[in-house]
Structures are given as C-alpha cells and as structure tokens.
C-alpha cells in the first residue's frame, strides 16, 4: 500500500470546483512537485489532505488508515506536517515561542531548548530565538514556518509555495533544505510556481488544472509536454477574454 492514497477527491466552493475528482498516490520516501496555474486547486488539495477542509466526495488513506473524516490534529499526530501557503507564523511572539508550539507536545525544559537550537541551526535561523517574528525578513519567516512543520517530525511533509517572496539565493538554500530532509526518509510534496525551483528539486511532477490531475510524470517529460505549456499560456488567455466581457 502506498503511504498516501487519494481517490476521486472533490471539493467545491459555491459553484467553483476547486478540487474535482483527483486521484493521487505517494510511496514512502518519495519527493514530488505539484504545479498548476493560479486557482488550480493546489492549496485546497493540501487542506483536504490535512483535513482543515472536508471533501464533498472521495477518500483519503494515510499509512493504511482511512483518514477521510479524521480531524486535522489527529492527522498531524499521525505524521502529516504542513506549511500552508499563508504563513501562519505568529508575528507577536518570538521565534522561540513559535517553535515551542509544535514541540511542547513531547518536549520540555532543556530537551526542548536543544531541539529548538538544532532546528534553527538547520533553518539558517540560529541566533534569532528571542526576536519577534514580525521583525524577521520574509524569507526567514518562510523558513520558520517550514521549521514548525518539521518540528512535528512528519512522515509526510506538505510545503505550499515554500519559496514565495524569496530571492534566488534563499530559494537555492530552501532547495537544499528540502533535499536534506528528503534524504532523512521524509516523504515530501512541494507546491511551487517557480519553475527554477521545481527544476532544482528535480522530482517527478504532478500538474493540476481546474481541480483535476492534468498530467503526471518525470520533470523532463512534463517540461516537454506541449499541453502543459499551453495551459500556463491558455490560463492567462481565458482570463483576458473573461475580463473583456465584463
């Protein structure tokens, strides 16, 4: 059985079918990129996987359990770690207090401090413990958000646009971080807009379009796929038509 299996997953908001009959599966230890135009349903898919949104239809299995109706906190403890697209770090609190939130389930005292130091070191955030998060640069906040997901010691890590707002240098470092976490055996799915980053990851790609799986394959195959290139262009063309009609 794969680590994660999704069958016919669907979710509509009003008339918009954000996720529309998606089938998707991941083997233990895989690294996967998900791409797709804006509004393709990538973020909604992640929320369905964690359970912050419940699907209208379809099923989700994780580690051989049907988790379709399981609550998000249950899935988090089962090993699904998420960095959402919106950052969700707590700006008024210090970096240390942010890191404590995921860690205080199992650690306290010196063990906690050591773990925070270890994670921050890894995230390029060493020495920022006592800074208020609102004072950090955008890229640092992204790393903190990733770090909070990592602190849950996930089996499956979902990263929604982890390099948004980063410069090229920071983006590269994020890529190395993803690779090093992957090498530890964590299964990772990355949603990303930035094709340069997707190339750096070099992982197999799933393309979402209008809530459906449009194409799936190796990075090279997807990059050569004429239809995939068209939907990126086509999406902007339909937008233009629509706005003219109004």
């Amino acid at each position, binding site marked *: 059985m794969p680590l994660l299996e999704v069958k016919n997953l669907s979710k509509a908001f009003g008339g918009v079918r954000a996720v529309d009959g998606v089938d998707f599966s991941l083997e233990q230890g895989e690294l996967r990129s998900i791409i797709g135009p804006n509004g393709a349903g990538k973020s909604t898919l992640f929320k369905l996987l964690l359970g912050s949104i419940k699907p209208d239809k379809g099923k989700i299995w994780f580690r051989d359990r049907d988790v379709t109706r399981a609550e998000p906190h249950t899935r988090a403890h089962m090993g699904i770690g*998420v960095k959402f697209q919106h950052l969700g770090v707590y700006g008024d609190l210090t970096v240390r207090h942010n890191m404590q939130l995921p860690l205080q389930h199992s650690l306290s005292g010196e063990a906690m401090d050591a773990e925070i130091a270890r994670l921050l070191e890894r995230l390029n955030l060493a020495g920022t413990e006592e800074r208020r998060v609102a004072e950090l640069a955008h890229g640092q906040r992204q790393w903190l958000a990733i770090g909070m997901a990592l602190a849950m010691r996930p089996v499956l890590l979902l990263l929604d646009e982890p390099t948004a707002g980063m410069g090229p240098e920071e983006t590269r470092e994020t890529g190395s971080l993803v690779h090093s976490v992957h090498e530890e055996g964590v299964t990772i799915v990355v949603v990303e807009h930035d094709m340069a980053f997707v190339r750096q990851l070099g992982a197999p790609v799933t393309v979402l379009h209008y809530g459906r799986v449009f194409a799936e394959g190796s990075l090279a195959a997807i990059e050569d796929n004429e239809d995939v290139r068209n939907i990126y262009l086509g999406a902007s063309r339909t937008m233009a038509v629509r706005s003219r009609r109004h």
Partner: protein
Amino acid sequence: MSVIQRPLALLVGPQEMGRTWYFWVGFVIVIGVGAAAPQYLGRFDLLNLANFLTSIFLALSLCLIWGFCGILSLGQAAFLGLGGYAYGVAGINFIESHGNTWAALGIGLAVPVALAAVLGFVMFYARLKGVYVAILMLVVTLLFETFLNQTAGQGWFIGDAHLGGNNGLGRFSGVIKRPPSFIFSEGGIKFLGKSYAFFYLTFGLAVLCYLGLRIMVNSKLGFVMVAIREDPERTEALGYDVRLIQLIVFCVSALLASMSGILYVSWGRFITPDVFGVYNNILPVIWVAVAGRKSLTATVIGTLVLVWMSQRLTETDYAFVVLGGILVGAMLLLPEGVITGIVDRSAGLRARLAARLRARA
C-alpha cells in the same frame, strides 16, 4: 525549575504586559492601597468599591475568551446571571436551612459552566463562524431574561426559592426568602454584603484571579490559545484540537463570569432578570474593547475606571450615550484599546529615545 520558580516565571511571561520590576512595585503599592481601603473609605464608598470589584470577574471572563482566544461572546451575562440565580436558589435552600455555603457555591459555579459546556460543544464542534457565536450568545441570554420575567406565578418555586418574575429572587423580602450571603459554619465566618469581610473576600479573589489568569495565559495552554486566535487552521496543523481548547477556555470564562454573579447576589442579596439584559452584555464588551482586550492588566484597570465613570454619569441621562460614544471612538482611533495603545506607544517612544541617546553618545 522548582515548583515555586515555574509559576513565577509564567507570571511575567510574554503574553501579558508588566514584565519589569517597576510594574511589580506599582502592583504591590496598588494592592497595599486597596487593602487599606477600609481605613480611609467611608462605609458607603467601601460598599460601592466592593460592588465595582465584582465587575472585574465579568470583564476578565470576556478578556480571556475574546482577547486571548479570539472568541467574541456578546452574551457573557448569561453566565453571570445563571451563576447568580443558581447560587441564590441553592443558597435559599441550603445556606438558610443547613448552613451549607459550599454546596450553594458549587451549584452557582457548576450550572453556568454546564451551560457553557453544552453551548460550546454545539458551537465549536460545528466550527461555527465567530459572528454566529457572538450573536447566538446574545440571543441565549435575552431568552433567559424573557423566561425569568414570566416566573412571577406561584408555580415557580424551586424548593423554598421563589423565582419571582421581574421582581427577581428576594427583591421583596418578608414573605419570600432572600438569597443569603456566604456563611461558613466551620468557624462561623460570615461575609455579609455590607461588611469589611466581604470587601476583602472580593478584593482577594480579584487579585487571585488576575494572577491566576496571568499564569494561565503564559502557560502552554495560553500560547495555544493565542495561536488559535491568530490562526486556527495553522494551530490544528500543529497537532492541537482547536475545538476542544475553545471549549475549555469557554468553560473557564463562564466560571469567571459566574463568580461575578455569585458575588453580586451575596453582596446585595437579590437578583432580577435584568442581569441578563442587553446592558450587562454590552458593558463588558465596552470595558474590554476600550481598555485593550489583549491584556488582563488593561482590562482590570479599564473596567474599574469605566465602572466608576458610568456610576458618576448615571446621575445624568447621558451615561449610555457617552459609553457608546467612547466605545465607537476607541474602536476607530485605538482599535487595540486605549490602555494597550498608550502602553505600546510609550514603549515605542522610549525605544526611539534610547536609540537617539545611543546615537548621540
């Protein structure tokens, strides 16, 4: 850390203003001045002050759920009123006849918490929108008012206690029994409403609740509460059952509000359905919003100032217009609250001043 150090560290944790030594010097002075009140206040003023102090629990109850957990309830008076009535009814039956104040207190606290548990379970486990929670609580409390207003008939006895319709419990003493003050048979301690003892009891409880809540908001649970306020979805992703935590905090808040009700009843020995009305619901919202909902300290100070001010104003007809104006004005100009706003701004000013001094040196 030792058993003593830990709570002390939590007391000055980052979730609440007042982390400097001069804050605590000021705190000790305020406690001293407060505790000495019977020395310099006349009987009437002292009585009045004790009554003011009962409002603090209601204000803190709203501060906790709204300011720290992000749940606005426009019907906190439901818990106050229910606590007051439950204590009053139980008191008439238990304290008068058996001298059992603990039972009456227990019932006065348990009934509102049970209501909070039921309502909270339905609302939070349905992941109801915040605005719905807010107005449903108001509807609930107004229905209690309507219900109790029509309990004047002879059928509305609970044991020896007559609910008394719009006259309330024990408003007209004589034939009908009034709710008693706290009387503890062990050692014969009485906290009659007009006594020094009652003032000290309320004062002591207010200080304890304030300090206890400071510890609570800086505990693990406190950080999770704030995380839920800022971003519930994210907090779930970090492995917390948001619904359960909201429910727990809602129950704690009901407990605090009911303390206001119980103290109020044992102070004045009566309670009427008016306690469930619009004013008792909007007043805490005004206190907390104007003072600064994200701070316990601001809430306590603001509540005392505003309660004192509205009492001054009730001699005029403008009291509520003025309070409404203060609320709207504060929301527009200092949305985080007046006291919090001033503290933040002066901290910013101090930092800038220090920076300039450093630059010059």
